[in-house]
């Protein structure tokens, strides 16, 4: 069975590698390695070469990571806990290394920009549409009633049939689907799955709201096209989020039902893997087809070459961390990557992040007490 663990851990590297290698190809076309650029420069050979160089260097870093992981794994594979720690550590080191590689390219890009004076003779503008947030940017929050109903049903059934539950309740599974930790029977441990699911749905719902509320980012040289792209971008991720929530609800429901009735063990083993595969695969496909802010969606309209987006590099520390005291926005699109980030100058944004972390870390501890 340990071969299975090995295959899963190795396979899990792949999506992380793909994302880290291809990020520069998925960003908005007005950005290059965390530096804002005029859009038409994105396709110049110079920048194309830079992206390629980055992809090659990141591929090498990824390969090295894999080569380091393999012998370590065979050395320690008997100790499952140690494998988990080492695996997380290797991923952490990989992420730090990628950031260092990024920093080199970020510096180079910044220097290039200073030398070239791309923003001269262009009017820097910020453009917004007064009705942008009135448009339907996400799926309705009410749709989340469905997974919530599933959760309440699970809770209701559990309380109703509490007597029928076994004395020890599994609360932690390893990647092979084998129970790693049991808890004494109590309402806390019996309701572990539904309550975890409940908070998971709340987090997803909050993210859906964030997608709708996050800052409007329009390219002044072609505002209409840019808004169209952005609306599609937000909608697609909102749908993705909802599908993810439903898949998790199904998984949790089956795992929970397994306490009462024996469910086909093959299904119970493969389902978490299949769902993980669908979610990660879906996220990558969505990133490739949509791009950050909808940059990879195929729409073409006429462009006004005399205006350009406001150069806001000064607010992006190291090109990736947004810090702008004058901006009341809490959430905005990431610069280098796909998705959204926070305005670090706003305490409310920090509270939001910490709140989600507390739910993620605190809940399992609280329920297994």
């Amino acid at each position, binding site marked *: 069975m340990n071969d299975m663990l090995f295959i899963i851990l190795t396979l899990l590297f792949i999506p992380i590698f793909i994302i880290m290698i291809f990020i520069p190809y998925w960003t908005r076309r007005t950005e290059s390695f965390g530096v804002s650029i005029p859009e038409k420069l994105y396709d110049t050979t110079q920048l194309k070469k830079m992206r390629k160089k980055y992809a090659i260097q990141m591929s090498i870093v990824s390969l090295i990571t894999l080569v380091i992981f393999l012998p370590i794994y065979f050395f320690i594979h008997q100790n499952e806990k140690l494998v988990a720690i080492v695996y997380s550590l290797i991923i952490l080191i990989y992420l730090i290394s990628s950031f260092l590689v990024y920093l080199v390219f970020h510096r180079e890009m910044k220097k290039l920009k200073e030398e070239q004076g791309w923003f001269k003779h262009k009017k*820097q503008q*910020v453009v*917004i*549409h007064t009705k942008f947030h009135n448009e339907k940017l996400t799926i309705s929050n009410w749709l989340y009633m469905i997974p919530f109903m599933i959760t309440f049903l699970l809770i209701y059934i559990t309380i109703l049939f509490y007597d029928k539950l076994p004395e020890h309740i599994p609360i932690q599974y390893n990647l092979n689907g084998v129970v790693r930790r049991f808890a004494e029977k109590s309402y806390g441990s019996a309701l572990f799955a539904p309550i975890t699911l409940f908070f998971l749905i709340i987090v997803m719902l909050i993210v859906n709201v964030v997608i709708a509320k996050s800052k*409007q980012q329009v390219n002044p040289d072609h505002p209409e096209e840019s808004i169209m792209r952005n609306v599609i971008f937000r909608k697609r991720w909102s749908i993705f989020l909802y599908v993810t929530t439903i898949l998790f609800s199904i998984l949790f429901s089956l795992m929970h039902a397994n306490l009462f009735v024996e469910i086909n063990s093959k299904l119970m083993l493969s389902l978490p893997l299949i769902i993980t595969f669908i979610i990660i695969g879906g996220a990558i496909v969505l990133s490739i087809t949509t791009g950050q802010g909808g940059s990879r969606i195929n729409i073409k309209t006429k462009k006004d070459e005399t205006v350009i987006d406001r150069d806001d590099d000064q607010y992006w520390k190291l090109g990736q961390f947004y810090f702008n005291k004058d901006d*009341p926005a809490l959430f905005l699109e990431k610069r280098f990557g796909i998705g959204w980030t926070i305005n670090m100058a706003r305490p409310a944004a920090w509270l939001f992040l910490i709140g989600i972390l507390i739910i993620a870390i605190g809940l399992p501890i609280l329920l297994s007490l």
Partner: protein
Amino acid sequence: MYIHLDFESEIPIYTQLVEQIIAGIAKKELVPGERLPSVRSLASDIGINLHTVNKAYQELRQRGFILIHRQRGVVIHPDGPPPIDEQYLKDLKTTLHPLIAESICRGMTKEEFVKLYDEISKKYITEGGENNE
């Protein structure tokens, strides 16, 4: 409607906001009763201080272009733009004074000056459709 702001301009951002919203009303891109974004939402989208947007909205309210409701938020004045009153005429004269003075200095004729009015006003009267966003 689209609002374009130029951050390098010497004209303060709040003035640019006021001018653009009035231009939007003139072009009928903003119609009476139409909702404008809240102070926070507009400031977040543009990336500027809440006070800047607030100042612009307060000025538009004082001049009678918008209403600020506690519940319904900010709306374009449902009764339409304010009429020409004494105060407006006085302000307009004050604004025009130095402009006309300079045009006379430079030898501009009345016809040339009026031609400019025609040219500029066309932008607002012909371009403005019923719901031109």
